[in-house]
């Protein structure tokens, strides 16, 4: 509970700081020419928000599957010394299995820009 309260208070402090800084700033409104996104003097045809073509999307899917392993590793780390080589062997197997997935992905070229 204390941890939650502390995090909330710290967040509140920073939000207040930032809002105070904005309050002290100069004029608020921007005329239209000033709002143009910076393109080195050029102009865009459309809004920048778009169905953005993420070039690494397969990598992110592999990542969320691989990252699940963390959920298992944290508790494993606590009992590692106690359980000794058995824990090492289990985690070694686990990571070896997951590494196969990464190797397969690498072979399929998921880490480069699609």
């Amino acid at each position: 509970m204390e941890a939650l309260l502390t995090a909330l208070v710290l967040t509140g402090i920073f939000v207040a700081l930032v809002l105070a800084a904005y309050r002290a700033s100069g004029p608020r409104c921007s005329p239209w020419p000033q709002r143009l996104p910076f393109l080195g003097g050029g102009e865009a045809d459309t809004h920048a928000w778009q169905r953005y073509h993420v070039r690494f999307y397969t990598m992110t899917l592999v990542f969320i599957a691989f990252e699940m392993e963390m959920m298992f590793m944290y508790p494993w780390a606590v009992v590692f010394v106690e359980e000794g080589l058995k824990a090492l062997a289990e985690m070694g197997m686990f990571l070896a299995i997951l590494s196969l997935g990464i190797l397969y992905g690498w072979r399929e070229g998921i880490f480069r820009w699609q």
Partner: protein
Amino acid sequence: MSLAAFPFLAFFLALGAALVVVLDAVARAALAGAPAGPYLAGTFRHAAMRLSGQLVTTEAPDRANWRLAPAWYGALAAAGLAVVPFGEGMALIQLPTSIVLWGAVEALVVVVVFLHGWSPNAPFPLIGAYRYVATGLPVMLPSMFVLIGAALPARSLDVLAIVESQREMWNVVRQPLGLPLFLIVGLSLTLRGPMDYADSADLAGGSSAEDSGPARAMWQAARLAMLVAFSAMAATVFLGGYLGPLLPGPLWLALKTALVLELMVAATHLLPRMPVSRMVTFLWVVLLPVSFLHLLAAGLVAL
């Protein structure tokens, strides 16, 4: 919770950020072959001026997220620093799983930087935001492995226990690969030098290309705060944190944090930034196996 830690937290953030500015100016001037004095004077003079500038908006931004991103970033830095013990039992957030909390901070940094780049509705920030996600996600893997490696000898996920486990020997000696791997994570968390994929030079400042006045100043300040928080965490996990003879604990931690800050600043100015697809491959194909090895070595040493 130890409320005594609160003033330390505030001091750390303020003094640490000032120290980074000095270190950055000195390193930059030294490498450029110029005296550092004039640069330094200018930096502090202009920080105040930036705060009073106009808050420029773009055509149709996601205003709330854009304006609040620096606040979230700063809050994450503070929350990250809060798990660092400044002395025996003197951490603002004490949890049996505080390194998992640090992991959550790292994950949320990716969210915040993405929001900061997405919100202005402008191309350069947008590209910066997506690039950051591409590197920010996989770089979390070495980070988790490194922190779990440090948790092995401590038999706990608590940062306090990790410090106490270093009474005999610092983790930097026991787990030599850990600190370099963790520094790479830190460069990514604070958008610096070789890992600056969000605020890159080729994107005219990337996610902060459309920030002006106080928004820009706050974003830069939050980056400094995150750098301090990261360095304190690195000093705690690898350099024994507050442990040390004669001097009081917080002072030891400050000295070690300053040392890590120097390493970070040096890495910023001395290492080039690869194009992003190359870095993504590097993270998965080189750094991930290295962190496997690191964990294996750490495990064998801990047994």
